[in-house]
């Protein structure tokens, strides 16, 4: 076993030394590509899709799953197919009222995505986005006092967007997005209208 280790280390060492003497022959293409920064801002309606098992159980039908949602996203287009950016926004996942032993209350769960996003065009004017990162979740609870409690959940989103150009730098987009906070098992489907602004080109 130890001979194997030594052999592996030796192979890597030899390769590494060779590498330092090797001439890299890669030549990247000389074509100048335009790089742009694009801002997406918009909002719409969202519907919470994941199951919830709230207590007391007789309140299962009391859950509000549809609410307003908003997105802000900045994408860097390096001039090739794959683009990179960051995304945030705001969504209300769900809320419900509770009445227990004569005491009334309300609970709602909100989310702010903090995602690294990749996108690429798949057909003309249609882009697909994939985000990966965290959701900052906040519980607002009014029952036996008021509580505002936060946590992070790893998560992702995937969106399909159609952009209609209004001018050289401005456009309007319709976007369908599926958000998934996978640690807390929260899923949301949103439909949004967004302004698209190519605000920097170099």
């Amino acid at each position: 076993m130890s001979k194997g280790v030594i052999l592996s280390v030796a192979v890597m060492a030899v390769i590494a030394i060779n590498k330092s003497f090797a001439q890299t022959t890669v030549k990247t293409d000389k074509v100048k590509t335009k790089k742009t920064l694009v801002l997406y801002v918009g909002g719409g309606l969202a519907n919470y899709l994941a199951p919830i098992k709230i207590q007391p159980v007789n309140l299962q039908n009391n859950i509000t799953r549809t609410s307003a949602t908003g997105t802000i996203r900045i994408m860097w287009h390096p001039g090739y197919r794959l683009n990179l950016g960051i995304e945030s926004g705001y969504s209300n996942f769900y809320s419900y009222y509770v009445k227990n032993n004569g005491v009334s209350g309300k609970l709602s769960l909100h989310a702010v995505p903090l995602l690294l996003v990749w996108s690429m065009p798949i057909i003309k004017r249609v882009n697909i986005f994939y985000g990966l990162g965290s959701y900052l979740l906040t519980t607002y609870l009014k029952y036996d006092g008021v509580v505002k409690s936060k946590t992070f959940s790893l998560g992702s989103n995937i969106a399909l967007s159609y952009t209609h150009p209004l001018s050289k730098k401005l456009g309007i987009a319709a976007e369908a997005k599926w958000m998934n906070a996978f640690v807390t098992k929260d899923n949301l489907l949103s439909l949004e209208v967004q302004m698209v602004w190519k605000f920097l080109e170099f």
Partner: protein
Amino acid sequence: MKKIIIILLLSGLFLSCKKTYQVIMPDTSSWDLFKTPVALPLIQITRSAMEGVYDIPEGKDIFGELVAIKWSYVINNGDTTFHISGFFGKDIAYFICEGKQLNGSILMNGYWRKMVSTETGIMRLTIDPTDGASVLLTAAPLITSGSITINGKFGNGQEEPQIPITLKYKRPLNKSPAPFQIAAHRSGGRTSDLLPVSENSVAMILKTQEFGSTGVEIDIRFTRDGVPILFHDNTLNLRVIQKCGLVGPIENYTYEQLSTFVRLTHGEKIPTLREALNAVVYQTSLSFVWLDTKYTSSIKPVQALQKEFIQKAAAQGRGLDIVIGLPGKDQFNQFLALPDYTTTPALCELSIEDVEKINAKIWAPRFTEGTQNDKVAVVHAQGRRAFVWTVDVPEFITRFVNEGHFDGILSNFPSCVAFNYYVHE
């Protein structure tokens, strides 16, 4: 472009291909013979005589060479329920059955489970009169090697049991060193091990003896209004609770809020420490409780409950150790702030010097330090005990039992510790 879309769709598929594991507890109620009204409960003498180490002449390929058989009980609303458990040496397997006598035979009906996987199924066992039942059902059974043969069948999942198994009495259970604590983590077992009840619940405390435990470690936190409760994690999360909309630290919420909105994975409420200790004292025969300190505030409220329930256990004639666990320096310093800390039973995970400083009853190092027999000897010489935590790898459990000198092992797999301890020669 179509190709890209196909690739993206494929990628979506494979990125969502996480397999969800679950263990569906088999329904054991279909054995008509066991349900017959003329079947009687077994008496204490019979139950005690059945305990022992058994060879497995048939079924060893599934369960290993030996099984350690032991009874346990819980009390619910004044009724005592007995379970017979068999702890196997392979794949952290066990069976848990109820027992009855019928027409001179002994019947055992229940299920088996392997903790390393999701395998489970029905187990039905019988001791015929000529296989030892007639001796076991006497007033003074004399049991020798080979004098009891348990025959039975087991199945996979919900299927009717058809695979034969035979167990043959070999020798009594090992009881050395004594007392030896088989302490179960999270009040008896982890939710992630797909057990039928939730970790840190009263239901788990009532179940853990079936898994071989003689003691439990329970995790204590405080609610916003100062109620000590059982909860392990820093935050409310779906590993241990059902989705309810409450997120963040459990300390942000009052007990009333948690009690109203939160249910553990299998539907139980988060118990208070008082409810948990009540269950230990009045419903089980557990002899050890490790109150693991997951908070850094004052230990006084927990100390008060510790004192109260040590007295209650003594009043019941119960030999019950309740110790306050000190995992870090913050908790250690809080413990030092107690006016009577030298007489408060404690379990210290820090150095032996720290153990001496607070006169802790138990020193408990992490298993990754090894057997440390020299240090254990020092602790023993001071009249203290030594426990090791949290040992889950079967090979390590075997080594700690066979080569270590610890007085107790904390594990998520108490059945594995029980097997190794009871079969140890």
